[in-house]
């Protein structure tokens, strides 16, 4: 079913054009992005229920001008006919103050070249299976409550259950003197979270669901209730791993975390501009085994970060970052592309209209290979199958990686022993990890739950994934 336009943004379209036209008299480049993101989050826990607007909800505008020396932005959320001229004056005052502040501190503004936009018009409305409005709040809560009740029926060791579903409609309108782009799409995500306790030991298991979809996500969640309870109980008997280097098989979501942390953040090209990325030294060189091909793109696949254009009015692309082990290129926002003299890749994303756009990942993934998972497991003399994760962090300058993985299943002589280790901290030097990849399965799965930060802030929706991969990794 087709996702409708935002009435709010359509009502503001003429005023946005008026603003671009008025400021265009003083500045060689002006654009305005309008956002209208509306969503609901439904959460049923053993201990309570909540129904609130999604925390991704936002409605406002960000204006960007280039004054011949560099870019300046202004975020605001009040725009009526009479306020357009006030906004024009406010931007002028703030830009003067910004230039003055630099002078007072004897600091320079970088000369950022102005990006020459090509003319473009686009109107994109995505489709989903079941529109979120098709179920009432009561019906949605009943569905989630039934998941919670079923989880408790599985075991007395379950002490708390959370079933959460969130549907978000994203509508954006970008207007500059040469571009008029609009898009509307819906993404949804869900979580099943089960806390289990035995003899004072507490563990939890979590399973996420996501995609450019509507209420059909509830059926996917329902099918996994038993599995999440089983995993939580399994973790109650988990042991800690002895630190060391092991042969590992990473599940698609752990492989996705590695892709995201290892080379996703490491090739965000604003890091190139700052001299923070080791990747610059390795462009055109081998950084991974020849089995590894890695992509990032809003256009190549359908997940939560698939869109028609980014938050700077650049059209979505599919970027091949690593091709058969060779580092090919990075992903960029518009300013880093302007400074570096490269083409923007449609990766300029903002947490909201209130924030700066940075070079950010969209959907980041390893391409599938030709191996069979069964053969991969049988090839391991001693090691672990690593599944699910809690968090990750990268070090783009020195290619260190930190992945907190939920659990590992021990493998001895090609067979699972039944022993579980949890949690597992995977650390190491990224090229060593990627060069050690010796088998890649034919499976392919993406996941886009949660959010990715730039450092410790600026959260954005991304997805990551790929096939099962076999590698050597340092675990602790």
């Amino acid at each position, binding site marked *: 079913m087709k996702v409708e336009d935002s009435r*709010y943004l359509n009502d503001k379209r003429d005023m946005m054009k008026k603003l671009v036209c008025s400021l265009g008299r003083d500045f060689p480049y002006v654009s305005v992005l309008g956002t209208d993101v509306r969503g609901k989050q439904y959460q049923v826990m053993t*201990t309570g*229920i*909540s*129904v*609130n*607007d999604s925390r991704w909800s936002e409605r*406002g505008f960000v204006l960007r001008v280039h004054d011949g020396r*560099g870019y*300046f*932005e*202004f*975020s*605001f*959320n*009040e725009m009526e006919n009479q306020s357009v001229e006030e906004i024009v004056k*406010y931007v002028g005052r*703030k*830009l003067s*103050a*910004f230039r*003055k*502040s630099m002078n*007072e*501190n004897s*600091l*320079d*503004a970088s000369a*950022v070249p102005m990006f020459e936009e090509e003319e473009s018009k686009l109107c994109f409305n995505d489709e989903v299976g079941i529109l979120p409005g098709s179920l*009432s*709040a*009561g019906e949605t809560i009943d569905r989630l409550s039934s998941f919670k009740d079923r989880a408790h029926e599985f075991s007395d060791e379950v002490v708390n259950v959370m079933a959460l579903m969130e549907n978000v409609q994203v509508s954006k309108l970008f207007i500059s003197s040469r571009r008029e782009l609009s898009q509307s799409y819906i993404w949804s995500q869900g979580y099943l979270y089960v806390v289990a*306790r035995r003899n*004072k030991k*507490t*563990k*939890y298991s979590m399973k996420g669901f996501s995609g450019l979809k509507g209420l059909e996500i509830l059926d996917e969640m329902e099918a996994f209730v038993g599995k999440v309870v089983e995993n939580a109980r399994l973790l109650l008997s988990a042991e800690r791993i002895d*630190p*060391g280097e092991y042969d590992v098989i990473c599940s698609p979501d752990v492989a996705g975390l590695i892709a995201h942390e290892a080379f996703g953040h490491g090739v965000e090209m604003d890091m190139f*501009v*700052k*001299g923070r990325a080791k990747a610059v030294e390795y462009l055109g060189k081998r950084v991974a085994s020849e089995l590894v091909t890695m992509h990032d793109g809003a256009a190549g696949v359908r997940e939560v970060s698939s869109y028609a254009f980014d938050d700077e009015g650049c059209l979505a692309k599919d970027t091949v970052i690593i091709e058969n082990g060779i580092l090919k290129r990075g992903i960029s926002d518009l300013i880093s592309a302007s400074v570096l003299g490269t083409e923007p890749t449609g990766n300029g994303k903002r947490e909201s209209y*209130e924030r*700066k756009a940075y070079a950010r990942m969209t959907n980041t993934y390893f391409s599938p290979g030709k191996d069979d998972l069964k053969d991969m497991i049988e090839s391991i003399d001693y090691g672990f199958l690593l599944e699910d994760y*809690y*968090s990750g*962090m*990268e*070090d783009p*300058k020195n290619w*260190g990686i*930190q992945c907190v993985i939920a659990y590992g299943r021990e493998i001895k002589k090609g067979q699972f022993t039944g022993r579980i280790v949890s*949690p597992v*901290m995977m*650390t*190491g030097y990224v090229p060593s990890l990627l060069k050690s990849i010796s088998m890649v399965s034919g499976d392919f799965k993406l996941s886009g739950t949660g959010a990715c930060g730039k450092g410790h*802030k600026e959260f954005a929706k991304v997805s990551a994934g790929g096939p099962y991969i076999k590698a050597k990794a*340092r*675990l*602790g």
Partner: protein
Amino acid sequence: MIETIVKNLEANSVDAWRIREENIESEEYFFVGNKVDLGRAKKVKKYEVTVYRDFEEGEKKYRGSSTVTISPGTAVEEIVHSIQEAFFAAGFVKNPWYPMAPKFSRRFRTDEHYLHDLSGDAIGAIFDNERPSNSWLNSVEIFVTRNGYRILNSEGLDAAFSKYRTYIESIVSSSGREEVELYDQLLLALPDVERISERISRLLLLVGERANAVPTPALDRIPVVLTGEPVREVMRYYLKQANARLKYDRISEVEPGDSVQSGESGDKITLEVVPELEGSYFSLPVDNDGFLIGKRTVIEKGILKDYWGDIKYSHYLGIEPTGAVLNFSVGPGSLSIDEMRKVDHLEVTNFSAVDVDETTGDFGGEIRLGWYFDGSKRIALSGGSVTGNLRELESIYLSKETELDGDYYGPRSISIEGLKVSGE
């Protein structure tokens, strides 16, 4: 806008309501080296409206709620639709009844500042520093913000206050064995020039150490001294064990009179929640409910004395609320940092990320900068990881020296036995 929202809440006969208005104005600077490549300003107003619905089943009273966000310029018909939809949804939110924040009316006074002056102070404090020859500021982002709040509810509460927020994200680099960097984020109320300057100077020294660091060897079980941010995050674990919501949600298992520690030897933790810490952005007069925030000692010598929490979860546990406090302080310990450093140990100041799991007590992080002391030499290290579980420690010692960092005031270092170190 508030009048329009209240009029429509009353017209729709909701059982109770709360409105939180926020006005935000900011100046933002994005530096690469000492050149700014983007300037930004922000002027935004938002309304968060919570609609409550009371109902009974048998003898039991319930209070459902639903929160919606409303932007300026939203048409009246859309506001009415949002309120009606939220009131309908709240009827399915079957949570036990709890009271609203009680009636009171006050405008909390704050000294007013020009954002331009504040951002000038922050920029000056960052760039006027003397720097070691082999370390430099790679990039800095400065956000200086004025947030104004007004909270109203259907009981007659009307509280207003404003605060300033200075957020500085710094990346420092150094060149030694190889070129390396360290990441830092500093969050203050006003841009305290002395604190910013000290912080930047210390970062430049630390990154110089990292530039000459060697890979962490496999040390396995050795006392681990944590200094700075990792201490704050470990102590936050104990703070959360005393939180009313986590107790109600069956995550925290401790009862008043129980130990929050796990029988390890060493120092016992005394922790209090506090509304005000000097210079802390997290100091607030009232919480999001409009409840006046209070101070409480929640852990005394390792024993849970009382929980802390907002009005809803405190009511559920049958305790007096403190409000949703954001600052906490921990009492000093028995060892000086020098005493902690006398024996063989690994000290870590910077992890890639400090991962502390409030549910399981699991702790872990990849080492970005640490030092191994083998009894004679102190060697800078990088790489490898520290992992363990805060419920399975052999000992924990807190330093006599204390520091203020963001929402935390307490020991600057802690020494722990019972963690595993993974290295090459």
